């Protein structure tokens, strides 16, 4: 979508275009208005093409579903319900398979000292646990719903950071070239070689366990892939004639980058962003599973960490292990499908012949 505001011919009034601000003269528009109108048209054209991509639409619907769940989490259960103390206070039964359950009474046999659990449905009402309860008695479905918030937020914020660093370095390397490029490229290569998990573990341990630190760690270990991609694309854009022209006209570097280079990199950055979110969510899950996540917050990864720690896999408690992983898989798959759809639209070479 190349945008060349200084090359514009005045656009005749088009009744299909929405009004933008104060009434315009019949045949003249400012370059800014023309650019905005063009942008609007590009977006609607993109959306039309996206709608036809079946995989992309499925992904979008799934994502919308999870985002809604995350937003409306308090509707399902209060946040306090995710804490172990609340579960204990409410005397919630632990490790209950999905379905109805009542509370349990512990009875100790005076002779053998054996402790047995007996279900008591007389004094307590039947509670419906759609996904059962975990080792502390918390309802798994509540954990999943609230976990969506952390997993999605961490994924999105980490991605924003990754893209800012990665795209920033990539564009700088491609645009400035020469010395700057070789230094930045060497830096990128080094970060690419170091296995992400090794770096993540060391960083997370040093920085301490908090939500922000996890986001930082993911960004530091992920930016290099984006930087390399953006740099390669920036190199092709920077050699195009209109960039030279802008420079010859006396445009500042900042202007050239934001008005000419960036808009042309937008499709590839957009597609890469979506795919990066997918990878960030997976990264957060892995780091939380290994014990590097924020111990105070509930994310799908920390649920799995607790399950592993309590021996849920060897104990056969599938309702504790399956839902979080399924949620992660579904969300990551949805983002991946959307990312592929965007890639297909913006890169005509990939379209099926």
């Amino acid at each position, binding site marked *: 979508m190349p945008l060349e505001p200084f090359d514009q011919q005045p656009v005749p009034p088009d009744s299909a275009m929405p009004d933008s601000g104060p009434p315009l003269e019949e045949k003249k528009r400012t370059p800014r208005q023309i650019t905005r109108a063009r942008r609007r048209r590009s977006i609607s054209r993109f959306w039309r093409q996206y709608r036809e991509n079946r995989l992309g639409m499925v992904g979008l619907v799934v994502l919308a579903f999870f985002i809604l769940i995350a937003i409306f989490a308090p509707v399902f259960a209060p946040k306090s319900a995710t804490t172990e103390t609340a579960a204990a206070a409410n005397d919630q039964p632990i490790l209950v398979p999905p379905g109805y359950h009542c509370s349990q009474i512990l009875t100790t046999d005076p002779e053998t000292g054996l402790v047995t659990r007996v279900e008591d449905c007389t004094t307590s009402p039947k509670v419906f646990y759609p996904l059962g309860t975990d080792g502390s008695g918390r309802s798994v479905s509540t954990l999943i719903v609230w976990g969506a918030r952390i997993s999605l937020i961490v994924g999105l914020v980490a991605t924003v950071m990754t893209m800012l660093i990665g795209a920033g370095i990539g564009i700088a390397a491609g645009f400035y070239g020469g010395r700057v490029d070789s230094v930045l490229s060497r830096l990128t*290569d*080094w970060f690419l*070689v*170091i*296995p*992400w*998990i*090794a*770096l993540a*573990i*060391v*960083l997370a*341990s*040093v*920085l301490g366990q908090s939500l922000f630190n996890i986001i930082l760690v993911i960004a530091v270990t992920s930016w290099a892939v984006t930087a390399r991609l953006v740099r390669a694309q920036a190199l092709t854009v920077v050699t195009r004639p209109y960039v030279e022209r802008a420079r010859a006209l006396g445009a500042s570097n900042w202007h050239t980058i934001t008005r000419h280079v960036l808009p042309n990199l937008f499709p590839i950055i957009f597609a890469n962003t979506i795919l990066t979110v*997918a990878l960030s969510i*997976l990264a957060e*899950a*892995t780091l939380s*599973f*290994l*014990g*590097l996540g924020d111990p105070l917050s509930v994310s799908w*990864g920390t649920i*799995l960490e607790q*399950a*592993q720690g309590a021996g849920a*896999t*060897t*104990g*056969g408690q*599938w309702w504790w*292990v*399956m839902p*979080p*992983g399924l949620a*992660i*898989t*579904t969300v*990551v*798959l949805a983002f*991946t*499908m959307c990312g592929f759809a965007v890639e297909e639209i913006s890169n005509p070479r990939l379209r099926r012949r």
Partner: protein
Amino acid sequence: MGSRRYLLKKILQAFFTMWFVLTMNFFLFRILPSDPVANMTKAQKLTRAESAALRIEFGLDKPMLQQYLIYITHPFNWGLSFQSSRPVADVIGERVWPTLLLVGISTILSTIFGVLIGISSAWRRGSRLDVNWLVSTMTFYSMPDFWFGMMLLLAFAATLHWFPISGYMGDPTATGWGHIVDVARHLVLPVTTLTIGYLGEYSLIMRSSLIDVMNEDFVGVARAKGLPDRLVRRRHAVPNALLPIVTMVILYFGYVLGGAVGVETVFSYPGLGKLTYEAIDQQDFPVMQAMFLLFSAAVIIANLIADITYGYLDPRVREA
């Protein structure tokens, strides 16, 4: 001959990168304004004397540059593990072999099957089988590898009891064939977990690489010469299509190592991955640092091997 220069250049690059990694390792623990010893011993409670002793041991009383020089000239001095007070090198030494087995077998299997499936997918492009496989691959790619291991463990070990639920060997006294079978039984699930995760990726890469190569002119020439299709594929298409696989498998090696950490944890498999998990749990910094170095070194060496192999396979690269 360009090959010798190519080799030297690549080895030099590897050393340079390793130096960067070592330097990074050194500074990582000193980037924070607080005291590195305090950072490292957060979990332990040390007396002032013990702290002071540690400080001297780590050379923190000397100026930074001197510390760095000492560090750089003794890259294999990994110190003692906090948790067991044994030399880190020993602790690592005991756990290397199981991880080597796990990662090695997984990489070999996922590469072979990935390539084979990729070839047949490319050949049957667009068919129902191809589409189904593409969807499955995307799904496995979206799964956290450790979670897939948990599900396998749940299903096949905990519930069906087909395989042992943990460990590396059930009977330490078994020898010869019995020992091999024992270890193999313990390896099945972990290896399956690691293999399937990356098999899909490799098959996709092979598939698109082969599709690209099939459209090249020289494949048409081979056919025009009168070669039957399967020989065209085997002699001309596949060898050229394999070239990107070499780089890709090595590129993913870093991720496979990362996956091994999670998988070994899930299966309580006593390898380096599980060691890393324990080190995180116990805040055992010397072990963590050593693992960082080891993992990085493994990836750098793997990259070097990939570069050399690629140079051997593709004559164009040697000249460059």
